[in-house]
């Protein structure tokens, strides 16, 4: 048997605790950890600083690796102990003593490996509970051995099937605080299958969007211990712990040390290089190993019917959100022309739902865009000196278009991040599939957030006078925002993505950053066939 096929004992014991957890870890290669797991790992590390010790007649050896060809199983014994002529495994758990079948099975499987390796009978083992400092003896009787082998068989069957086992029932207490909850989405899955009413609001995710935004020409970014040091003109500008940063954005020529780059990538902190109002390149943190999901993505985008269904929903969502955005802006002013545009956008959204193919979708999208921006122009406060006739880009030729382009490029990086966190390939889109070399799936995801997030920031900074019309400078044959304005604009964008909105399907309130990630995972679940139909984010 190929050694890669060996199942780790800890994963097999997991099957009894939660089969989905086993699938994500053993098949999809999930590596998400939470503080419980980390604490257990660190306790191991501190214990293992001494490899062997003996006390009151017991000799302990730590970290003993064993494997079995016959069982296709491998494992590491926390402690192999010898006392009174017997040899047995001791498994450490950080919590308080309580009887859990999966702990018993873990000790039992360790015992089986030990029997095979030594040729001796192992009659019992122990689980040691750190929090309450007690040992519980586990007897390896016939019925436990049978249960352990059944768990092993069940684990193999899940791995063969290659898709997550269905959620058995309503999410249990153990789902709260599970390291894989962001990936598994148990509350939402149970809601979609009708097993429970409204899903609970998710706990804050692991991406808080705390951004180091660097817009200083000639700055140098270096690493010192666990911190980032930003220097300019020989002065230290800032000294920030890496633990306080979730993302780095650089929008001027800067120098980066390889140590800093390694640290960012090891810690999963993405780095985006912006220039001329777009994302020019990015450093992607270690790619999530989820091959089954990406295979599903490839199959999905190859299927015309499946990808068209999602593309229709994406465009419909985009148009409906353009409509909602104009409606909100027009609530006080009641401009008739905007009301007319709103009604026509409603019709176009309905048409998008029925579109024959992607080309006609693109036609509808273009038509809606022109109408929408004519309405958007009406919402700009007169007297601020911003004239806006229509959308133009590459390069943008007037201040409003420059701001729109800049807002979209900030949104693009957050959508790329959401797609990558969900384990999908950002370059393989299902609607933006006509042009190579662009992060097409991120652009697909971005459509439903354009008006509500990006356009909203632009309207806000203009109408509140946060950015003035004289803060632009010509570049090449276009125009761009000057330095100080860029920082203020970035601040306004960050404020927006931290504002909350209600998810149209799940009904809970989360911030836009989290919404993008939920939508990216939604796409993934539809591609894997776990959830049936994609629903775009629609603002209320």
């Amino acid at each position, binding site marked *: 048997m190929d050694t890669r096929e060996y199942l780790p004992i800890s994963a097999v014991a997991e099957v009894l605790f939660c089969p989905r957890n086993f699938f994500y870890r053993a098949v999809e290669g999930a590596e998400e950890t939470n503080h419980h797991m980390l604490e257990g790992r660190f306790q191991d590390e501190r214990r293992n600083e001494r490899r062997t010790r003996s006390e009151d007649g017991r000799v302990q050896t730590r970290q003993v690796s064993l494997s079995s060809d016959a069982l296709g199983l491998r494992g590491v014994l926390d402690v192999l102990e010898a006392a009174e002529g017997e040899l047995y495994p001791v498994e450490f758990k950080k919590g308080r003593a309580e009887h859990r079948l999966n702990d018993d099975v873990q000790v039992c499987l360790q015992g089986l490996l030990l029997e095979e390796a030594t040729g001796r009978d192992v009659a019992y083992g122990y689980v040691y509970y750190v929090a309450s400092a007690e040992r519980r003896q586990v007897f390896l009787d016939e019925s436990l051995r049978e249960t352990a082998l059944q768990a092993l068989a069940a684990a193999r069957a899940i791995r063969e099937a290659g898709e997550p086992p269905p959620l058995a029932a309503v999410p249990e207490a153990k789902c709260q605080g599970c390291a894989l909850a962001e990936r598994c989405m148990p509350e939402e899955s149970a809601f979609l299958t009708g097993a429970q009413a409204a899903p609970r609001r998710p706990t804050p995710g692991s991406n808080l969007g705390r951004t180091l935004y660097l817009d200083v020409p000639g700055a140098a970014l270096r690493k010192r211990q666990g911190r980032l040091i930003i220097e300019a003109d020989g002065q230290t500008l800032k000294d920030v712990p890496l633990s*306080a940063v979730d993302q780095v954005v650089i929008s001027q020529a800067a120098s980066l040390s390889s140590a800093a780059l390694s640290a960012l990538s090891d810690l999963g902190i993405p780095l985006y290089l912006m220039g001329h109002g777009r994302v020019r390149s990015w450093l992607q943190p270690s790619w999530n190993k989820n091959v089954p999901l990406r295979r599903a993505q490839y199959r999905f985008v190859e299927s015309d019917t499946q990808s068209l269904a999602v593309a229709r929903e994406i465009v419909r969502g985009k148009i409906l959100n353009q409509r909602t955005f104009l409606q909100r802006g027009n609530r006080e002013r009641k401009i008739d022309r905007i009301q007319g545009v709103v009604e026509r956008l409603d019709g176009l959204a309905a048409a998008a739902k029925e579109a024959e193919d992607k080309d006609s979708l693109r036609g509808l999208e273009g038509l809606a865009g022109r109408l929408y921006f004519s309405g958007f122009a009406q919402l700009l406060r007169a007297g601020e000196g911003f004239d806006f006739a229509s959308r133009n880009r590459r390069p943008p030729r007037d201040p409003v278009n420059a701001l729109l382009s800049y807002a979209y490029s900030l949104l693009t990086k957050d959508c790329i991040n959401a797609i990558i966190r969900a384990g999908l390939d950002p370059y393989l889109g299902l609607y933006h599939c006509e042009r190579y070399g662009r992060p097409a799936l991120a652009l697909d995801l971005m459509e439903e957030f354009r008006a509500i997030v990006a356009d909203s920031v632009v309207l806000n900074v203009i109408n509140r006078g946060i950015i003035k019309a004289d803060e632009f400078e010509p570049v090449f044959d276009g125009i761009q925002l000057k330095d100080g304005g860029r920082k203020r604009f970035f601040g306004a964008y960050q404020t927006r993505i931290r504002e909350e909105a209600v998810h149209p399907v799940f009904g809970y309130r989360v911030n836009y950053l989290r919404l993008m990630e939920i939508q990216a995972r939604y796409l993934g679940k539809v591609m894997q066939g776990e959830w049936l139909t994609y629903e775009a984010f629609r603002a209320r």
Partner: protein
Amino acid sequence: MEHYVVTYDIADDKRRSKVFKTLKDYGTHVQESVFEVVLMTEDYVELRHKLLRRIHRDEDSVIFYRQCRACEHDVERLGRKVELVGIGDIVL
């Protein structure tokens, strides 16, 4: 996210400087032997682990005072301003 005031009293100069350097990677040095750290629970667990490995448990002491959401607002700071890291964006 967790917010702690961390105080330490370390008997040996070399170990004290190690503890200081470790804490600098996680938060803000606000006063002599006092740090404030605002971090994710995972980072907090990692910080505890690193400190446990550094200190001598019979002579040194490190104390974490947790600040709950409500008491964060009940803190009054006089004198020079200290900017805490870990809360929001850093725009340069």
